[in-house]
Protein backbone atom coordinates (compact mmCIF):
# COMPACT_ATOMS: atom_id res chain seq x y z
CA UNK A 1 0.00 0.00 0.00
CA UNK A 2 1.47 3.26 -1.10
CA UNK A 3 1.40 6.26 1.17
CA UNK A 4 2.59 8.75 -1.38
CA UNK A 5 -0.88 10.28 -1.70
CA UNK A 6 -0.54 11.51 1.87
CA UNK A 7 2.13 13.88 0.59
CA UNK A 8 4.50 13.64 3.52
CA UNK A 9 7.42 16.02 3.85
CA UNK A 10 9.96 15.90 6.60
CA UNK A 11 8.73 19.21 7.97
CA UNK A 12 5.15 18.08 8.51
CA UNK A 13 6.30 14.66 9.70
CA UNK A 14 8.45 16.35 12.33
CA UNK A 15 5.50 18.46 13.36
CA UNK A 16 3.25 15.42 13.85
CA UNK A 17 5.92 13.42 15.60
CA UNK A 18 6.51 16.29 18.02
CA UNK A 19 2.79 16.59 18.61
CA UNK A 20 2.48 12.86 19.28
CA UNK A 21 5.43 13.04 21.66
CA UNK A 22 3.89 15.92 23.57
CA UNK A 23 0.65 13.94 23.94
CA UNK A 24 2.47 10.80 24.99
CA UNK A 25 4.59 12.79 27.42
CA UNK A 26 1.56 14.40 28.99
CA UNK A 27 -0.11 11.00 29.26
CA UNK A 28 2.94 9.52 30.91
CA UNK A 29 3.21 12.43 33.29
CA UNK A 30 -0.43 12.10 34.32
CA UNK A 31 0.01 8.34 34.66
CA UNK A 32 3.01 8.62 36.95
CA UNK A 33 1.96 11.69 38.92
CA UNK A 34 -1.75 12.41 38.60
CA UNK A 35 -2.43 16.13 38.41
CA UNK A 36 -5.46 15.77 40.64
CA UNK A 37 -8.53 17.94 40.67
CA UNK A 38 -9.00 20.93 38.37
CA UNK A 39 -7.86 24.27 39.66
CA UNK A 40 -9.43 27.64 39.10
CA UNK A 41 -7.20 29.92 37.08
CA UNK A 42 -7.24 33.60 36.26
CA UNK A 43 -9.89 33.26 33.55
CA UNK A 44 -12.22 31.69 36.09
CA UNK A 45 -11.99 28.39 34.26
CA UNK A 46 -11.52 25.09 36.03
CA UNK A 47 -8.68 23.42 34.22
CA UNK A 48 -6.71 20.23 34.56
CA UNK A 49 -3.30 19.67 33.06
CA UNK A 50 -4.85 18.27 29.88
CA UNK A 51 -7.14 21.26 29.52
CA UNK A 52 -4.15 23.56 29.81
CA UNK A 53 -2.37 21.65 27.05
CA UNK A 54 -5.41 22.03 24.87
CA UNK A 55 -5.60 25.75 25.55
CA UNK A 56 -1.91 26.07 24.76
CA UNK A 57 -2.20 24.26 21.44
CA UNK A 58 -5.34 26.07 20.34
CA UNK A 59 -3.87 29.39 21.37
CA UNK A 60 -0.64 28.63 19.53
CA UNK A 61 -2.58 27.92 16.36
CA UNK A 62 -4.15 31.35 16.51
CA UNK A 63 -0.88 33.05 17.43
CA UNK A 64 0.67 31.52 14.31
CA UNK A 65 -2.26 32.60 12.13
CA UNK A 66 -2.13 36.11 13.57
CA UNK A 67 1.59 36.37 12.92
CA UNK A 68 1.13 35.19 9.35
CA UNK A 69 -1.63 37.63 8.58
CA UNK A 70 -0.01 40.69 10.14
CA UNK A 71 3.74 40.10 9.88
CA UNK A 72 4.19 37.23 7.48
CA UNK A 73 6.55 34.31 7.21
CA UNK A 74 8.87 33.09 8.43
CA UNK A 75 6.90 32.79 11.67
CA UNK A 76 9.81 32.22 14.03
CA UNK A 77 8.65 35.12 16.16
CA UNK A 78 5.34 33.34 16.58
CA UNK A 79 7.20 30.37 17.97
CA UNK A 80 8.62 32.55 20.74
CA UNK A 81 5.22 33.97 21.57
CA UNK A 82 3.78 30.45 21.63
CA UNK A 83 6.40 29.36 24.12
CA UNK A 84 5.62 32.35 26.34
CA UNK A 85 1.92 31.60 25.98
CA UNK A 86 2.52 27.97 27.01
CA UNK A 87 4.40 29.03 30.12
CA UNK A 88 1.67 31.51 31.00
CA UNK A 89 -1.09 28.93 30.53
CA UNK A 90 0.61 26.22 32.55
CA UNK A 91 1.42 28.60 35.38
CA UNK A 92 -1.62 30.81 35.70
CA UNK A 93 -4.68 29.44 33.93
Amino acid at each position, binding site marked *: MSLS*WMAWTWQTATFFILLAMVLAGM*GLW*EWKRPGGNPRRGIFGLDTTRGDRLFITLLGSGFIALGWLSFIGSPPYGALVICALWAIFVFRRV
Partner: protein
Amino acid sequence: MRRFKWLVPTLYIVFLMLPIYWLLNMSFKTTNEILGGFSLLPQDFTLENYKKIFTDPTWYNGYLNSLAYVVFNTVISVCAALPAAYAFSRYRFLGDKHLFFWLLTNRMAPPAVFALPFFQLYSAIGLFDTHIAVALAHCLFNIPLAVWILEGFMSGVPKELDETAYIDGHSFPSFFVKIFIPTITAGIGVAAFFCFMFSWVELLLAKTLTSVEAKPIAATMTRTASTSGYELGLLAAAGTLTIIPGAFVIYFVRNYIAKGFALGRV
Protein backbone atom coordinates in the same frame (compact mmCIF):
# COMPACT_ATOMS: atom_id res chain seq x y z
CA MET B 1 -53.61 32.03 25.60
CA ARG B 2 -53.47 28.45 26.73
CA ARG B 3 -56.36 27.61 24.40
CA PHE B 4 -54.34 28.59 21.36
CA LYS B 5 -51.24 26.71 22.36
CA TRP B 6 -51.93 23.94 19.86
CA LEU B 7 -51.66 26.51 17.07
CA VAL B 8 -47.88 26.74 17.41
CA PRO B 9 -47.04 23.10 16.64
CA THR B 10 -49.84 22.94 14.10
CA LEU B 11 -48.60 25.93 12.12
CA TYR B 12 -45.07 24.62 12.37
CA ILE B 13 -46.11 21.25 11.00
CA VAL B 14 -48.05 22.91 8.18
CA PHE B 15 -44.88 24.82 7.33
CA LEU B 16 -42.93 21.56 7.34
CA MET B 17 -45.44 19.77 5.18
CA LEU B 18 -45.79 22.35 2.42
CA PRO B 19 -42.56 21.57 0.53
CA ILE B 20 -43.15 17.87 1.00
CA TYR B 21 -46.63 18.23 -0.38
CA TRP B 22 -45.22 20.05 -3.38
CA LEU B 23 -42.69 17.32 -3.96
CA LEU B 24 -45.43 14.71 -3.79
CA ASN B 25 -47.58 16.76 -6.11
CA MET B 26 -44.77 16.97 -8.65
CA SER B 27 -44.05 13.29 -8.47
CA PHE B 28 -47.50 12.50 -9.83
CA LYS B 29 -47.17 14.88 -12.73
CA THR B 30 -45.59 14.31 -16.10
CA THR B 31 -42.60 16.43 -16.97
CA ASN B 32 -44.68 18.21 -19.56
CA GLU B 33 -47.32 19.17 -17.07
CA ILE B 34 -44.73 20.44 -14.63
CA LEU B 35 -43.08 22.67 -17.16
CA GLY B 36 -46.36 23.55 -18.79
CA GLY B 37 -48.06 25.28 -15.97
CA PHE B 38 -48.90 25.68 -12.32
CA SER B 39 -51.49 23.57 -10.51
CA LEU B 40 -52.05 22.65 -6.91
CA LEU B 41 -53.03 19.09 -7.79
CA PRO B 42 -51.82 16.92 -10.65
CA GLN B 43 -54.21 17.45 -13.56
CA ASP B 44 -52.90 14.50 -15.46
CA PHE B 45 -52.29 12.04 -12.65
CA THR B 46 -49.56 9.54 -13.48
CA LEU B 47 -47.57 6.80 -11.77
CA GLU B 48 -45.09 6.64 -14.63
CA ASN B 49 -42.31 8.22 -12.58
CA TYR B 50 -42.60 5.64 -9.86
CA LYS B 51 -42.88 2.83 -12.37
CA LYS B 52 -39.65 3.91 -13.95
CA ILE B 53 -37.83 3.88 -10.61
CA PHE B 54 -39.08 0.44 -9.68
CA THR B 55 -38.16 -1.09 -13.02
CA ASP B 56 -34.90 0.60 -13.86
CA PRO B 57 -32.03 -1.14 -12.01
CA THR B 58 -29.86 1.98 -11.82
CA TRP B 59 -32.69 3.56 -9.81
CA TYR B 60 -33.74 0.79 -7.49
CA ASN B 61 -30.19 -0.37 -6.93
CA GLY B 62 -29.48 3.10 -5.65
CA TYR B 63 -32.02 2.56 -2.92
CA LEU B 64 -30.67 -0.86 -2.07
CA ASN B 65 -27.12 0.48 -1.93
CA SER B 66 -28.11 3.31 0.34
CA LEU B 67 -30.03 1.03 2.64
CA ALA B 68 -27.17 -1.44 2.74
CA TYR B 69 -24.51 0.98 3.88
CA VAL B 70 -26.86 2.83 6.23
CA VAL B 71 -27.88 -0.33 8.03
CA PHE B 72 -24.29 -1.49 8.08
CA ASN B 73 -23.12 1.80 9.50
CA THR B 74 -25.86 1.87 12.13
CA VAL B 75 -24.86 -1.59 13.33
CA ILE B 76 -21.13 -0.78 13.45
CA SER B 77 -21.66 2.58 15.12
CA VAL B 78 -23.96 1.28 17.83
CA CYS B 79 -21.89 -1.84 18.49
CA ALA B 80 -18.65 0.10 18.82
CA ALA B 81 -20.27 2.87 20.80
CA LEU B 82 -21.84 0.58 23.41
CA PRO B 83 -18.67 -0.44 25.29
CA ALA B 84 -17.16 3.02 24.86
CA ALA B 85 -20.24 4.75 26.23
CA TYR B 86 -20.17 2.32 29.14
CA ALA B 87 -16.57 3.24 29.87
CA PHE B 88 -17.37 6.97 29.74
CA SER B 89 -20.41 6.60 31.98
CA ARG B 90 -18.79 4.37 34.61
CA TYR B 91 -15.08 5.02 34.81
CA ARG B 92 -12.56 7.75 35.08
CA PHE B 93 -9.48 7.06 33.00
CA LEU B 94 -6.49 8.81 31.61
CA GLY B 95 -7.62 11.51 29.20
CA ASP B 96 -11.30 10.57 29.27
CA LYS B 97 -12.70 14.08 28.97
CA HIS B 98 -10.31 15.07 26.22
CA LEU B 99 -11.03 11.92 24.32
CA PHE B 100 -14.71 12.71 24.46
CA PHE B 101 -14.12 16.22 23.22
CA TRP B 102 -11.88 14.96 20.46
CA LEU B 103 -14.61 12.59 19.30
CA LEU B 104 -16.97 15.52 19.03
CA THR B 105 -14.49 17.70 17.11
CA ASN B 106 -14.83 15.39 14.15
CA ARG B 107 -17.96 17.23 13.16
CA MET B 108 -15.92 20.40 12.82
CA ALA B 109 -13.78 19.61 9.79
CA PRO B 110 -15.24 20.83 6.50
CA PRO B 111 -16.04 17.62 4.60
CA ALA B 112 -15.67 19.30 1.24
CA VAL B 113 -11.87 19.32 1.36
CA PHE B 114 -11.53 16.19 3.41
CA ALA B 115 -13.37 14.22 0.73
CA LEU B 116 -10.24 13.92 -1.38
CA PRO B 117 -8.05 12.22 1.24
CA PHE B 118 -10.99 9.99 2.02
CA PHE B 119 -11.16 8.94 -1.60
CA GLN B 120 -7.44 8.24 -1.62
CA LEU B 121 -7.47 6.46 1.70
CA TYR B 122 -10.23 4.05 0.74
CA SER B 123 -8.74 3.54 -2.70
CA ALA B 124 -5.42 2.73 -1.08
CA ILE B 125 -6.92 0.02 1.09
CA GLY B 126 -8.96 -1.32 -1.80
CA LEU B 127 -12.39 -0.58 -0.45
CA PHE B 128 -13.36 2.08 -2.97
CA ASP B 129 -16.87 1.66 -4.33
CA THR B 130 -17.99 -0.80 -1.69
CA HIS B 131 -20.79 -0.48 0.84
CA ILE B 132 -18.40 -1.04 3.67
CA ALA B 133 -16.34 1.99 2.68
CA VAL B 134 -19.28 4.34 3.10
CA ALA B 135 -20.39 2.57 6.26
CA LEU B 136 -16.94 2.97 7.79
CA ALA B 137 -16.54 6.55 6.66
CA HIS B 138 -19.84 7.56 8.21
CA CYS B 139 -18.57 6.24 11.53
CA LEU B 140 -16.58 9.45 11.67
CA PHE B 141 -19.57 11.49 12.74
CA ASN B 142 -22.01 8.77 13.82
CA ILE B 143 -19.89 7.06 16.44
CA PRO B 144 -19.33 10.22 18.50
CA LEU B 145 -23.05 10.91 18.35
CA ALA B 146 -23.94 7.35 19.38
CA VAL B 147 -21.43 7.44 22.22
CA TRP B 148 -22.86 10.70 23.46
CA ILE B 149 -26.49 9.52 23.36
CA LEU B 150 -25.76 6.14 24.91
CA GLU B 151 -23.59 7.66 27.61
CA GLY B 152 -26.56 9.78 28.65
CA PHE B 153 -28.83 6.78 28.92
CA MET B 154 -26.27 4.65 30.72
CA SER B 155 -25.64 7.30 33.32
CA GLY B 156 -29.33 7.03 34.12
CA VAL B 157 -28.86 3.38 35.12
CA PRO B 158 -27.55 3.10 38.69
CA LYS B 159 -24.13 1.51 38.88
CA GLU B 160 -25.51 -0.66 41.66
CA LEU B 161 -27.22 -2.65 38.93
CA ASP B 162 -23.81 -3.58 37.50
CA GLU B 163 -22.52 -4.46 40.92
CA THR B 164 -25.54 -6.61 41.70
CA ALA B 165 -24.85 -8.55 38.52
CA TYR B 166 -21.18 -9.01 39.42
CA ILE B 167 -22.17 -10.12 42.89
CA ASP B 168 -24.59 -12.59 41.34
CA GLY B 169 -21.56 -13.98 39.55
CA HIS B 170 -21.97 -12.52 36.06
CA SER B 171 -18.74 -11.83 34.23
CA PHE B 172 -18.49 -8.47 32.48
CA PRO B 173 -19.44 -9.76 29.01
CA SER B 174 -22.30 -11.83 30.36
CA PHE B 175 -23.61 -8.91 32.40
CA PHE B 176 -23.25 -6.54 29.48
CA VAL B 177 -25.09 -8.71 27.00
CA LYS B 178 -27.70 -10.34 29.19
CA ILE B 179 -28.53 -7.60 31.65
CA PHE B 180 -27.26 -4.23 30.58
CA ILE B 181 -28.15 -4.10 26.90
CA PRO B 182 -31.78 -5.11 27.51
CA THR B 183 -31.96 -2.43 30.19
CA ILE B 184 -31.03 0.37 27.84
CA THR B 185 -32.96 -0.66 24.72
CA ALA B 186 -34.57 2.75 24.64
CA GLY B 187 -31.17 4.40 24.41
CA ILE B 188 -30.07 1.99 21.72
CA GLY B 189 -33.24 2.79 19.79
CA VAL B 190 -32.61 6.51 19.95
CA ALA B 191 -28.92 6.14 19.08
CA ALA B 192 -29.74 3.87 16.15
CA PHE B 193 -32.29 6.39 14.94
CA PHE B 194 -29.78 9.20 14.88
CA CYS B 195 -27.13 7.04 13.21
CA PHE B 196 -29.59 5.94 10.57
CA MET B 197 -30.68 9.49 10.02
CA PHE B 198 -27.25 11.04 9.57
CA SER B 199 -25.99 8.19 7.42
CA TRP B 200 -29.07 8.21 5.24
CA VAL B 201 -29.00 11.93 4.57
CA GLU B 202 -25.27 12.38 4.01
CA LEU B 203 -24.25 12.66 0.39
CA LEU B 204 -20.80 14.13 -0.02
CA LEU B 205 -18.76 11.26 1.42
CA ALA B 206 -21.10 8.63 0.06
CA LYS B 207 -20.75 10.06 -3.42
CA THR B 208 -16.98 10.41 -3.14
CA LEU B 209 -16.42 6.85 -2.05
CA THR B 210 -18.57 5.16 -4.66
CA SER B 211 -18.81 5.06 -8.43
CA VAL B 212 -21.00 2.25 -9.74
CA GLU B 213 -21.36 -0.77 -7.50
CA ALA B 214 -22.34 0.99 -4.30
CA LYS B 215 -23.74 4.22 -5.66
CA PRO B 216 -26.32 5.69 -3.30
CA ILE B 217 -29.71 6.84 -4.45
CA ALA B 218 -28.91 10.44 -3.73
CA ALA B 219 -25.99 10.29 -6.13
CA THR B 220 -28.14 8.63 -8.78
CA MET B 221 -30.48 11.57 -8.46
CA THR B 222 -27.83 14.22 -8.94
CA ARG B 223 -26.51 12.43 -11.95
CA THR B 224 -30.00 12.21 -13.42
CA ALA B 225 -30.52 15.85 -12.81
CA SER B 226 -27.37 16.77 -14.64
CA THR B 227 -27.32 14.26 -17.52
CA SER B 228 -30.89 13.94 -18.71
CA GLY B 229 -31.82 17.55 -18.21
CA TYR B 230 -34.50 18.37 -15.76
CA GLU B 231 -36.71 15.35 -15.47
CA LEU B 232 -38.45 16.96 -12.58
CA GLY B 233 -41.24 14.44 -12.19
CA LEU B 234 -38.82 11.56 -11.96
CA LEU B 235 -36.63 13.49 -9.56
CA ALA B 236 -39.62 14.30 -7.37
CA ALA B 237 -40.72 10.69 -7.32
CA ALA B 238 -37.24 9.54 -6.35
CA GLY B 239 -37.09 12.23 -3.69
CA THR B 240 -40.44 11.16 -2.30
CA LEU B 241 -39.21 7.61 -2.06
CA THR B 242 -36.16 8.68 -0.06
CA ILE B 243 -38.45 10.01 2.65
CA ILE B 244 -40.13 6.64 3.19
CA PRO B 245 -37.38 4.63 4.96
CA GLY B 246 -36.82 7.51 7.36
CA ALA B 247 -40.53 7.76 8.04
CA PHE B 248 -40.58 4.06 8.87
CA VAL B 249 -37.67 4.36 11.25
CA ILE B 250 -39.10 7.35 13.05
CA TYR B 251 -42.42 5.57 13.38
CA PHE B 252 -40.76 2.66 15.12
CA VAL B 253 -38.76 4.74 17.57
CA ARG B 254 -41.40 7.39 18.23
CA ASN B 255 -42.19 5.99 21.67
CA TYR B 256 -38.55 5.97 22.64
CA ILE B 257 -38.25 9.57 21.57
CA ALA B 258 -41.35 10.54 23.52
CA LYS B 259 -40.68 8.49 26.65
CA GLY B 260 -37.27 6.87 26.64
CA PHE B 261 -35.52 9.93 25.38
CA ALA B 262 -36.70 11.85 28.39
CA LEU B 263 -35.41 9.21 30.77
CA GLY B 264 -31.89 9.54 29.49
CA ARG B 265 -29.82 12.42 30.71
CA VAL B 266 -29.92 14.17 27.38
